[in-house]
Structures are given as C-alpha cells and as structure tokens.
C-alpha cells in the first residue's frame, strides 16, 4: 500500500509552489500561536516566579484580606505561633514593595523590593555569591533578571531610589549574591533583609525595632505533601491568619488570572483560525480535484487509498508548515532582549506544536470526507 503516499508526494512535488506557499501560511499561524504562548509564559512568569519558586509549601496571609499581599499584615507573635505548631519545620517573614533602581548614565527601571529573613524561608538560594548576612544592613541579592539588565555582578554596588513622604531618597547596597529569576509583580527583584527594607521603605508594611511586621509568612513543612491538612491546622491554631499553597497564592496576585485567561482565549482563537484556514485550503483544493478523484475511483482506486492520500497530504503540509514556524520562532527568540516578557519554554513549544499538528488534520477532515463522497460516476459525466 505505497500507492497513496506515492500519489500524494507526486502531487505535492509537482505543485510545490502552491504547497510551499500554504505551508508558509501555516508557519505564520504557528509563529503566532507560539508567541502568544511565550507571552503568556513570560507575563505569567513575571507575576508568579518569586512565589512559585519559594522554599516553603504554605503562604500565610492575614485572614479576611482576600489573599491580597499588599493588604496583608502579619507580626512576630504570629510567626512564633506558627513555628510552634507541630509539623512546621521553619518559617520566615516576607515583605514586598517597589522601588526604582538607578543605573549610571541615568538609566533606571522599577524593581520589586523583597524583604526576607536571612537564612529563613523566603530568601532565595543564590547561584552566585552568598546569601544575606545576619546583620546585613546594606546587602542585597539581585535576581537573574536584574543581573541581565544591569550587567551587575557580585561585589558591585547598586543604587535604589525611593520616595519617602515628598522626599526622594537614595540607598546604595552591595550585591552579595545573585539568584535565579525571581520576578514579582512583573518586576525583577532585589532581595534584602528586613532592616534594610525598613530603611528604604519605612512603614510599608510597618516594621520597627520592637516588632517585625511583614506582608506574608512563608512556611516550610516537615511533610510537604501534607500541605492541605496543615493549611487548615494553621488557620485553626493561629489567630487571624489564612494559609494557602503557592499556586493559590500567585493565582491571586493582581491581574494574574485575568491576564492568563485572556491569553488562553487568544491562543484558542488562533488555533481555531488555524483549523479554519487549513480546512478551507484543503476544501477548496478538493473541490478543484473532484473530476480527478472521480476518475481515480472509476478506474478502481479504492476509497481507502483516496482517504490515505488526502490525509497524508494534509499531515505532511501541516508538519512542514508547523516545522518552519517553530524553527522561525526559535530563531526569532534569540533576538529578543531580556527585558521583554516573552519566555519560550520547551514545554510550551512542544504543546503548541503538538496542538497545531492535531489542528491540521482536524481542519482537513471535512475535505477528506468530501473526497470520499465523490462518486466515480462523475468520470462519465453522470450523476447517481
């Protein structure tokens, strides 16, 4: 049964201009699908990265703040109460704000300022340098994104600008470590100890010498898999708190879910357009081929052969188009600067490519069905 493949390959080869052109249309759709996926990943990443990678299974908020990090306030006594609950391994407070990072030559951009307790959950591990020192009042860890944008490395100074009241204040910090990507709220992050945080952004949230108030408490469990039960235990045993897992936490960051569902919708519609375009192309082509298909059936070509030839053609053209598109996407991705929130994860590319490969044949099925229904009698100019 090589005849259907022979026929379809001959047809593609002898009409290679037309098929190549159509492959390029599929390639463009592929490019679009993969870019939307990359944008979704990039934006999603920017919003969830810090929380998603936290070295703690539970994120504790003040109760009744609807999981709003900005509105959540937790103090030292609550931390101590949490740590006393059996099953809790360790916990650390974390606070969030936004400041401007000033580079030389007037370049500046917003960064997330994250206050953590040195050595406690919440402080990201470094890939270069060391973690924050205990009494470190002017040390900072920068995440990979800050490092990429500034070119700073361990040992360099970095300057932050914050508005206090009506006053612009500047702070110079020494970079002691670089972590992997830890964006928060779409901003690259600078991680400091709470005393430093308090100096740069006093009162946001309220931090003082006698009591340490933070937005969140990051809780590490003895048995990470047991997080569901522990979340309930914590809420029951400690007054005024709510505990959720990391995924729930980042899904409740402002705009995250709305943004992702918007992008998912776009992705869906691009795939739908793909189905329609591929379906339309092959349907038109089949309509043009009706006399030829009728003739083939009249001389005895079985329906199965017609179906396999048609399907093979659709699959081949789709594979060609999607491959060109995926290749173009990968090449294009190398030209993108780190500042653009577009992340091509291999997983997203694989999923995108796989769904497009499915979409092609689905779009073409109508035309295959149509080809199957062509009557061999048409070869003699008769109708049934």
């Amino acid at each position, binding site marked *: 049964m090589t005849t259907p493949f022979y026929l379809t390959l001959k047809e593609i080869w002898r009409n290679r201009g037309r098929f190549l052109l159509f492959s390029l249309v599929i390639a463009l759709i592929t490019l679009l699908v993969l870019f939307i996926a990359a944008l979704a990943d990039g934006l999603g990443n920017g919003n969830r990265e810090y929380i998603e990678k936290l070295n703690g299974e539970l994120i504790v908020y003040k109760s009744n703040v609807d999981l709003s990090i900005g509105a959540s306030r937790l103090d030292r006594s609550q931390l101590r109460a949490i740590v006393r609950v059996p099953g809790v391994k360790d916990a650390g407070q974390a606070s969030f704000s936004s400041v401007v990072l000033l580079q030389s030559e007037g370049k500046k951009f917003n960064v997330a300022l994250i206050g953590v307790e040195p050595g406690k959950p919440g402080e990201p591990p470094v890939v270069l340098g060391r973690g924050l020192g205990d009494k470190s009042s002017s040390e900072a860890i920068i995440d990979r994104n800050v490092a990429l944008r500034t070119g700073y490395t361990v040992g360099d100074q970095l300057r932050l600008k914050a508005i206090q009241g009506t006053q612009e204040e500047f702070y110079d910090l020494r970079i002691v470590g670089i972590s992997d990507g830890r964006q928060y709220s779409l901003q690259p992050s600078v991680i400091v100890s709470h005393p430093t945080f308090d100096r740069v952004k006093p009162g946001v949230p309220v931090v003082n010498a006698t009591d340490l108030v933070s937005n969140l408490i990051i809780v590490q469990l003895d048995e990470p898999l047991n997080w569901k039960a522990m979340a309930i235990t914590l809420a029951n045993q400690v007054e005024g708190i709510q505990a959720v897992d990391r995924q729930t936490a980042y899904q409740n960051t402002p705009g995250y879910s709305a943004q992702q569902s918007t992008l998912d919708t776009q992705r869906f519609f691009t795939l739908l357009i793909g189905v329609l375009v591929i379906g339309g192309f092959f349907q038109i082509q089949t309509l043009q081929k009706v006399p030829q298909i009728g003739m083939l059936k009249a*001389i*005895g*070509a*079985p329906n199965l052969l017609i179906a396999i030839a048609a399907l093979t053609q659709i699959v081949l053209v789709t594979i060609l188009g999607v491959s060109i598109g995926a290749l173009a996407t990968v090449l294009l991705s190398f030209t993108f600067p780190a500042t653009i929130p577009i992340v091509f994860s291999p997983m997203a590319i694989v999923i995108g490519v796989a769904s497009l490969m499915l979409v092609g044949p689905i779009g073409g099925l109508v035309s295959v069905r149509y080809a199957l229904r062509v009557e*061999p009698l048409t*070869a*003699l100019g008769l109708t049934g």
Partner: protein
Amino acid sequence: MVNALETKSVTKIYKSDIGTIRAVDEVSLNVANGEFVALVGPSGSGKTTMLAILAALLRPNEGSVMIDGAELSQMSEAKRARFRREKIGFTFQANNLVPYLTALENVELMLRLNGKYDRAGRERARELLARLGLGERLKNLPRQLSGGQQQRVAIARALIHTPALVLADEPTASLDTERAHQVIQTFANLIHEQQRAGIMVTHDLRMTQYADRIIQMRDGKLRRVISDPAEIRAFATTGEAVTAN
C-alpha cells in the same frame, strides 16, 4: 470464441420530478474477446448509461451483467472497485489523466493500483506508449500534451493491466479528424492484437469503420446491430447501413 461480456435484459430506470425514464431498456448483448464494438445513437439514447452499467459504476434495475465470467449484480461496492481496476480499462471524454503524473506515470498507475508495478510492467508501459506514438513524451505532464496525445495515454492506461473489457467514452470528442482516425485505428489494432473486448461510445460515425460491430441505440433500446463489414463501411460513410431495399 469466448464472450468477455454478456448482458441479459439490462434495464436502468431514472426517477426524477418530471417522471421516470427508461434510459436503458432490456438490452442484451454479448461481446467476444478480440472484438471491437462501436456504440452509437442519438443524444439521450442511453449510451453513457449503458457504458456506466458495463463499467460496474451503475447498478441496473433489472437484468444481469457478466464480465469475464463474473456476475456484477452480486458485488459489493468495494468488490466493484476492485473489479474495475483488475478487469476493466477506461478512457473518458475529459479529465482522463491524473494532472500531476507524467504520461508514463499515468499508465504505470494502473499497475500500481493492481499491485503489479514491476520492471516488466514498466517496460510494457514504455512499449505501449511508444506504440501509440508517445515514445518521446513519456516524461510530459498531461497539460504539456495535446488532446489527442492525452487520449492515447488513456488508451495505454486502459490496456496496460490486461483487462477483459476496455470501455471508451467519446475518445475522439476533442480531436481533429486526422488525429481521430489515427487514434481509433491504433486502438482497434491493439484490441485485436491483445484479444480484449472493446466498446467505444462515439458520435462520430466515421469512427465506426474500425469497429467489428456497430450497435445503435434509441430510447434506451437496441435499435440495430450491424456486423457485416460492407454494411459497416456503408454506415460509417452515410450513417445508413443498408442501401435502399
């Protein structure tokens, strides 16, 4: 002589809004191996319908069709497709060839469909095309061939797989007179040499001179059968078989 084709009282009735038409009406006819038959008749007389029935493309309402010893009416659609590619050769009025296959590939396709595509088959395909004057045109696509050349490729395709029955629907419709004579003469010769049963539907009465028998239809019925060589010649020149009684 063995009959490649035998039909008994074949009847095809078309039902439409305007009424029922007996497009083929109790036609019984036999064609022997090595016999070339011309099927003629006015427009609407049922020639194409008859051809479609003989081609296992259309089921008659009544009657039986036996080709190479096999009774068509018993066959499923899949069996009919198989029967067509094994036992029947076709040339059509238009859209004869696969447009993206060369002349040679179009002929070879018949062998591929039958799982008989081998070195010997390829050689026979070349010889047949050369015999039909297309030795220099093997690698041409249909659009690079004239109407007559395309018809000749179709004739080669209709013969390559040694079918029992060869059916040709208006093979000269798009040809000029000279080409038409050449094509049909070669066709008739090949039918005789290879001992196939050949049936050609034609409007062009001059082409009937190459036939061994002329079957004239009218209103779905066999009106007249002419098999005397002198009468055939007369019919081919005047359209009337017999001189005045």
